[in-house]
Every structure is written in C-alpha cells, then in structure tokens.
C-alpha cells in the first residue's frame, strides 16, 4: 500500500504508522468528498424553487436572509423539529432504512467524480479513480431503485406500493438507453475511468462528436431521477405523493434531498462525460478554476432539467413506456453500432487517433466531422419517420371521423 496525497499530509503531522496514516487520510477524503454534495443540496433546493417561481411568474422564497438565501436552512430546522412518525403497520427496520439507502446511492456517485486537475498520479483531484468508474456509477445508481421499492413496500400503504410498482417499470427500462449512451464516451476514451474520459476530451469535447448520445443520456437521466415529464413515481394527482406518502419530517427530507441532488449529479456527470468536466481556460495553471468550470457546465444541464420540469406536463405510464421501448432503446442501440463501426473504420484508415488524450485539434477534426454528420443524418431520418407516423395517424383519425359523419348523414 503506497502513501500519497492526503496520507502524506497526515504523516507529516506526526502519525508514524503508515497504515494508520493511510486510514486517517482516507477518512478525511471521504468526509470532504461527501461534504461537497451535502453542502450543494442546501443551495440546490433554493435555486430550484427560485427558478421554478420565475418560470411560473412568481417571486419565490425571499423572506429568510438576503434574497431568501437561508430559506432552506429554515426549512431544514422545521423538518428536524417535526414529529417522526412510523406507521403502526409499517415494517419498522426497512421503513427507516429506505431514506438512508436513497440518499447514500446518490452521494456514493460523488466518489468517482474528478473535481479538478492535479499534476500527480491519478491526474485529478478525485475521491478514487476507479478503472470501472462509469460502471460504478451505474451500479450505485441502481441502489436508488431498491430504496424506492423498499420505501413503497415497508410503508404498507396502497398508494406507496403503486408508486413503487411504477419505479420498476420506469427506472429499470430507462437504464437501458442510459447505459448505451454511456458506452459512447467509453468507446472514444478506450477506458471506463472518469479521469481518462476527461483527458480524452482535451482536444475535442464528446458533445460535438456524439450529440445524439448526449441527448439520449440527458433524457434517460431525467427519467432516472423521476422528474417531469417522467414524474410518475410521485404523480400527485394520481397517487397523492407516491412511494414517500407515509414519510414525515427528516425522513421525507432525505428522499427530497436525494432527488434534488440526483438531478444536479446527473448534470455533473453529463459535464464530465460529454463536455470535458474540469477542462477549460487556465485549468492546468490554476486548478481550482477547473472546479468552477465543472460546476458551470453541470449547472447548464441542471438548468435545462429544471426548465423542462416546469414546462412540460406529465406523460401517461403507457406513453412513457412506449417512448422508451419503441424510440429511445432502438435509437440508442443503432447509435452505438454505427458509432463503433465508424470509429473503428476511421482508426483503421488512420484518419482518427487511437489515443485521443495525446492527439491534437487537427487530428480530432476528421472523426468529429464524420460522427457529427452521422448524428445529423440519424436525427433527420428519425424526425422524418416520426413526422410520417404522425401524419398517418392523423390521416387515419380523419378517415374515421369522415366515416362517422357519412353514417350519421345516412341516418
């Protein structure tokens, strides 16, 4: 076991035993890395409420603190002060474990998120640079499904159970296009490590090479977080509140915070996978500015997500399922096959670099143009097909109406 980074700092402070120093170093790292999302979520809730208010032509919270900045703190204190209810018929242990699993599944994702550039070994300030970073994200995020199922079942409430049933249908099916979209940056970088994926974008962001994959990832991550137009999990008008109906106080607060944090985490992931993460102006000279770039890029996707949430109406469950299985899944599979084929052919012909991290802008241009053209052609063809189907459906409806009119006239 080698002793680097924080471990060295701990050792220099007078901890002689290397394994103990390593342990303390890891402990500090864990607290720091999980502290970032915990602090962020306090302001995310405020940001979301403010933006939602503006979209709905309201002012939003503005009473507690300057510009309402302390509103979430007040809400937090209120939630903590509320009575902690466990329904008599609930499964006590699982009922209490569910909010914890839900929040943990989101915070755990942050372990593999690189925050800024670093000159030494992993190449970035990151909790842990796993070889399988992307796969780790998918695995950990799938625990969120488990949390919602457990909450729905343990509450012993019909609405909660119905909400949980929808989760399996929604989250498990939207994981398929999500993973297929994830495969694209992995293929480009030739690695599943988050740091390697960022390094591979040094000369060209993947969003220009794979806009379609970015779009697919965004749509399916929006569904994964269960937000409008996919918020069937807690469809208020149908299920009262969905899986978390029986939860009160801070236990509800944890589900709430987990959802908000998950949306922002998805924004950060999109920034890392498709927009180069911390890469940006002066990121090597002054690393902390990379943290700013990462936050800025993540916020763009976060804002689009909020925008959609407050603009679009909720879809029916069959529409959501149909959209996934008949549109997103075939498109994402076709996208992966075509991208892999083009990338491999270009690499064999010598027009595309095999090591994108050590290429140049000129070296990346041919493959970018070809892949961009492929995506544009795919989007045009798909949209053309969708438009054709829409016209046919409308024509069929029109014929039906005409027939009905004729019969009515005949009488």
């Amino acid at each position: 076991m080698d002793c680097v980074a924080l471990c060295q700092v701990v050792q220099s402070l007078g901890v002689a035993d290397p394994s103990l120093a390593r342990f303390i170093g890891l402990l500090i790292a864990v607290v720091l890395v999980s502290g970032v999302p915990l602090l962020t979520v306090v302001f995310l809730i405020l940001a979301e409420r403010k933006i939602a208010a503006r979209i709905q032509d309201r002012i939003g919270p503005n009473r507690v603190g300057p510009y309402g900045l302390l509103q979430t703190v007040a809400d937090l204190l209120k939630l903590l002060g509320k009575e902690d209810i466990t329904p008599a018929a609930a499964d006590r242990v699982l009922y209490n474990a569910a909010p914890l699993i839900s929040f943990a599944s989101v915070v755990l994702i942050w372990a593999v998120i690189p925050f800024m550039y670093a000159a030494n070994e992993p190449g970035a300030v990151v909790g842990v640079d796993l070889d399988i970073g992307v796969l780790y994200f998918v695995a950990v995020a799938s625990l969120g499904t488990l949390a919602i199922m457990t909450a729905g079942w343990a509450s012993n409430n019909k609405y909660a159970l119905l909400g949980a049933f929808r989760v399996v249908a929604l989250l498990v099916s939207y994981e398929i296009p999500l993973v297929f979209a994830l495969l694209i940056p992995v293929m480009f970088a030739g690695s599943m490590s988050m740091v390697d994926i960022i390094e591979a974008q040094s000369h060209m962001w993947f969003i220009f090479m794979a806009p379609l994959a970015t779009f697919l990832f965004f749509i399916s991550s929006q569904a994964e977080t269960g937000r409008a137009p996919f918020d069937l999990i807690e469809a208020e008008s149908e299920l009262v509140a969905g899986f978390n109906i029986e939860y009160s106080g801070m236990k509800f607060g944890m589900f709430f915070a987990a959802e908000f944090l998950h949306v922002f985490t998805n924004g950060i992931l999109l920034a890392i996978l498709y927009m180069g993460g911390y890469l940006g102006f002066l990121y090597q000279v002054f690393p902390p500015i990379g943290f700013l770039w990462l936050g800025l890029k993540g916020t763009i996707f976060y804002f689009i997500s909020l925008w959609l949430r407050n603009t679009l109406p909720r879809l029916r469950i069959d529409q959501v399922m149909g959209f996934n299985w008949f549109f997103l899944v075939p498109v994402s599979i076709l996208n992966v096959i075509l991208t892999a084929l083009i990338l491999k052919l270009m690499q064999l012909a010598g027009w595309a670099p095999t090591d994108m991290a050590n290429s140049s802008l000129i070296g990346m241009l041919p493959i970018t143009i070809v892949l961009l053209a492929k995506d544009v052609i795919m989007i045009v063809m798909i949209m053309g097909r969708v438009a054709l189907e829409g016209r046919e459906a409308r024509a069929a409806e029109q014929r039906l109406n005409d027939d009905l009119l004729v019969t009515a006239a005949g009488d």
Partner: protein
Amino acid sequence: MNDINIFLILAWVVFTIITLGGALGVVTTRNLFRGTIWLMVSLFGVAGYYVLLEAPFLAAVQVLVYIGAIAILFTFAVMLTRSLTQLTDRYNRPIANVVGAVLLFVLLMVGVILPIWFTNEPVDPAIINAQVQDTRDLGEALVSKDGFVIPFEVVSLLLTAAMIGAIVIAREVEEDEKGKRA
C-alpha cells in the same frame, strides 16, 4: 502478501459477516420481502470479496446485475403476490432439505475445495495483477479466438433463446390467432 494489512483483514471479517449473516437471514426470515432484502445484503458482501480480490469489474457487475436487476425483480414478484409476504406456515420438507444440503456440501467440497486445499499458497495480488491487468484484458479474453469466444457466444445464444422463450410464454394469444392454433 508480505505485510498482512490489518485493514484488509478487518474488511474481510466485515464482508464475511455481511455475506453469511445475509444468507442466514434469507433462510430464517418468514417474510418473503425481507428475505429478498437479506439476499441483497448477502450478495453485497460477495461484491466486497471481489473488491478485496482486486477485481473491481466483477464487484460492479455483481452489484449491477444481482442487486440492481435480479433482486429488484425478486422484490417486484414478491410484492405482486402480496398474500405470500405474510406467511405463517412453514413449508418445510425436513428429509428432502437435509439430503439436498448434504449433497450440495459434498459436491462443493469435492469439486471446489479439495483440489486446492493443500496446494493453495497465499498469492500476492500484485502477481495476479501482472497476469490479468484490468477490465480491458477481461474483454479481450472474452472475444479473442484463443480466449473464451466459443463459450461466450454459446452463453449469449442460450440467453437469447431463454429471453425469446419467456416472451412467447408470457404473450397473450390474440383473438384472431386462436383459430390458427387450434
């Protein structure tokens, strides 16, 4: 390993408790939903073993496939059959259970434990890492012609056949098709 790391041993003990405790929970609880949760706990402990063996890919796949997909489907099936979650009767067949358990134990002992019982020396993970470096090697082994491409394709075919079979069984026969079948 030259210096046996105390934290590695600690981690091994924790994962062993999680795995065995979870497995014990599966067979002792009468509540089916809790049983599936215990199963997930046990499978999670196994993922921990993979991490200790420096096989992070297998650990992630373990969590993704077993906990994220298979166990979730178990819970779904259990929740749909709600009357089964509050079982009070025991559906035990003691003799069959004992015979089955003993046979499985003997099979595992003879097939897996015995061949490596005395020959198995402690192996430094660094040596294993030199042979199998990362996930890339695993991927190449699965599709290269001197690797495992034949078993890989056979398993893929089998899974596809099973999937099609499941769809055929689950699909409802439509009205206009009934006549053709009869």
